[in-house]
């Protein structure tokens, strides 16, 4: 099994290179790279343009740019004044050494901007994920046990509505009802913007209060999809002979359900959750945008509007790394939770 884990890790390395290549090539070929420096309707022109192109290394062939992006250019001399003699030392350290470049809008290192936003996103997403998994497990198991009951049928209908739900409808609906209608009616209402009320300061109560609506938005849609998946897995397992055996030898239904059925039904569920965990880092673009939550999704959206390529590439790379890391972790976890699998 040790060899299997090592092999899987080695497979992840070329995968990461392919991802970085796709991200780099696509973004580098997306129109004028200097658009972020230009004014509202213009382009950077003339001498300014040549100077910037040299400074950003865009005069180099694309494969040189890719290598520089990966490993940096502090080991080579650059020709910044355009006289054909390279004399200035490069300053970039490359993605592989943790330098994601510098934002062309804020002039800050991308890694610092990400570090500022990441905790906010993780707070939102991990809270949502906990809510999602707990509710989905309860609902999924309950609907499987009471299949074709009124409860199951009603919930099946609701879950279809749930995973057909566009995020804007749910988010704006929640804002309308709990943020505004409640306030107008004099009831306790939920805040709808950001993480803290500027007047109240950065207190934990404020944070919890501000988390409610975005977490609800994220959860309702995912609970619908997860619980359907858990239900069908539970039903498949509950139809097996060993469940009948367990029941007929007099085990309590609780033991049968949780020890015999759920343990086996858990395998695909573990996979699903593991694969989703990687995307937690991405935050939720639409939800964060609606609720002005200062996370990764909002960072990405704001800088996409300003064509800030280094930030976009940095964020995409980080998310892809996290997705691949969690895929790896899911596969390795599998070797522990499923003893039936043998690895050569």
């Amino acid at each position, binding site marked *: 099994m040790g060899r299997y884990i090592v092999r899987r890790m080695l497979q992840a390395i070329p995968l990461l290179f392919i991802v970085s290549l796709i991200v780099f090539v696509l973004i580098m070929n997306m129109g004028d790279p200097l658009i972020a420096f230009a004014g509202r309707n213009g382009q950077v022109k003339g001498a300014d343009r040549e100077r910037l192109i040299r400074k950003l290394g865009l005069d180099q062939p694309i494969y040189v740019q890719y290598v520089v992006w990966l490993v940096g250019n502090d080991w080579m001399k650059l020709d910044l004044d355009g006289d054909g003699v390279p004399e200035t030392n490069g300053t970039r350290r490359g993605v592989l050494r943790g330098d994601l470049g510098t934002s062309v809008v804020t002039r800050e290192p991308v890694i610092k901007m990400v570090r500022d936003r990441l905790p906010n996103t993780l707070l939102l997403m991990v809270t949502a994920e906990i809510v999602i998994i707990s509710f989905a497990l309860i609902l999924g198991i309950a609907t499987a046990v009471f299949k074709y009951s009124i409860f199951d049928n009603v919930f099946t209908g609701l879950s279809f509505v749930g995973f057909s739900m*566009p995020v804007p*409808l749910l988010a704006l609906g929640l804002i309308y009802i709990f943020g505004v209608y409640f306030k107008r009616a004099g009831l306790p209402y939920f805040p709808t913007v950001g993480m803290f009320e500027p007047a109240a300061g950065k207190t934990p109560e404020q944070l919890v209060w501000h988390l409610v609506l975005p977490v609800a938005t994220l959860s309702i849609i995912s609970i619908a999809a997860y619980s359907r998946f858990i239900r069908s897995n539970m039903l498949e397992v509950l139809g097996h002979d060993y469940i009948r055996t367990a029941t007929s030898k007099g085990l309590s239904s609780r033991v049968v359900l949780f020890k015999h059925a759920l343990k086996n039904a858990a395998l695909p569920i573990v996979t699903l959750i593991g694969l989703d965990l990687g995307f937690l880092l991405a935050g939720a673009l639409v939800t964060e945008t609606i609720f002005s939550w200062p996370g990764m999704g909002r960072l990405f959206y704001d800088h996409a509007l300003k064509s800030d390529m280094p930030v976009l590439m940095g964020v995409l790379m980080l998310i892809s790394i996290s997705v691949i890391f969690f895929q790896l972790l899911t596969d390795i976890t599998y070797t522990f939770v499923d003893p039936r699998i043998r690895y050569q």
Partner: protein
Amino acid sequence: MAVATETLSKGEERVMFSPSTKPTLSLWGLAFRRFLRHRAAVGGIIGLALIFAFVIVGSFAYTEAYANKPDVVNRLQAPSWLQDPPTWEHPMGTDSVGRDVLARIIYGGQISLIIGFLSVLIAVTLGAIIGAVSGYYGGSVDSILMRFTEAMIAIPSLFFLIIISKMLIGSIPNINLLGRSLSGSVPIVIFVIGIFGWMVEARIVRSQFLSLKQQDFVLAARALGVKDHSIMWKHILPNSIAPIIVFASLGLAVAILTEAYVGFLGLGVQEPTASWGNILNQALSYLNRAFAPQDFIHRGVWWLWLFPSLMIIFTVLCVNFIGDGLRDALDPRGLTK
């Protein structure tokens, strides 16, 4: 198998196993019967037909010029049947430059549905080609294509969609089609959603090819000297058409939602051409501009997002029901037991 019986409704099982079932029915005939017995799926078909009727008949009631005509004096009017005296002038109100929301939903619906269907067509074609080549040839072709597929899965597609639409939008001039002028962003959105939707299908088709290419009929075809591409497309692909259809129907729901998200973020179809997504965008820009959603609601602009998103949820719901019905009808596991 347990799953197969579970996904069928009770009435269906009785029909399936009763001796009156005619054994002469073909696979497709059987699937069609099973689909018709899936009540939600039939409801989905009817619902989708109603939506089509709505966006087509509606375009006779309002002209597109009317849907795109600003009328700043009457901006942000609430639905006119709520006003005193109630009229039917603007049944769903007007948007922030005074255009009629109902007319925009009708023309936006046409665009959103076209985007959904065409982008799924692109995704399905790409997925079938990549999956088929990968599964049929195997070896290094397979491992390169599958690493590429895995890499595409690891990149969050909505993020990528946003970058590409941001960069490409505006690069194509308006298109004149059948006497209508459409924003050049429409084909871009179709293309972009299409090229990010094929990965799951490629994997399904690949696994189908892996198992089907071992079967005797493929061996027989090869022994007769049938060419590789002909074996792939004429012999193996028709046998894996069922999962492709199921995938396409569920992909349509995702494509319509994706269009709505990209449009909502202002990076999809560009105005004045309407789509369900960019009608919603008005609500977002209002939310951002006001800096106080309380104000946003107090000014009473709920009709800006409620009506288009109800259309989206209704369409996606119908498509999901149809996809569910198709899965039950076409999934070969339903034939066993």
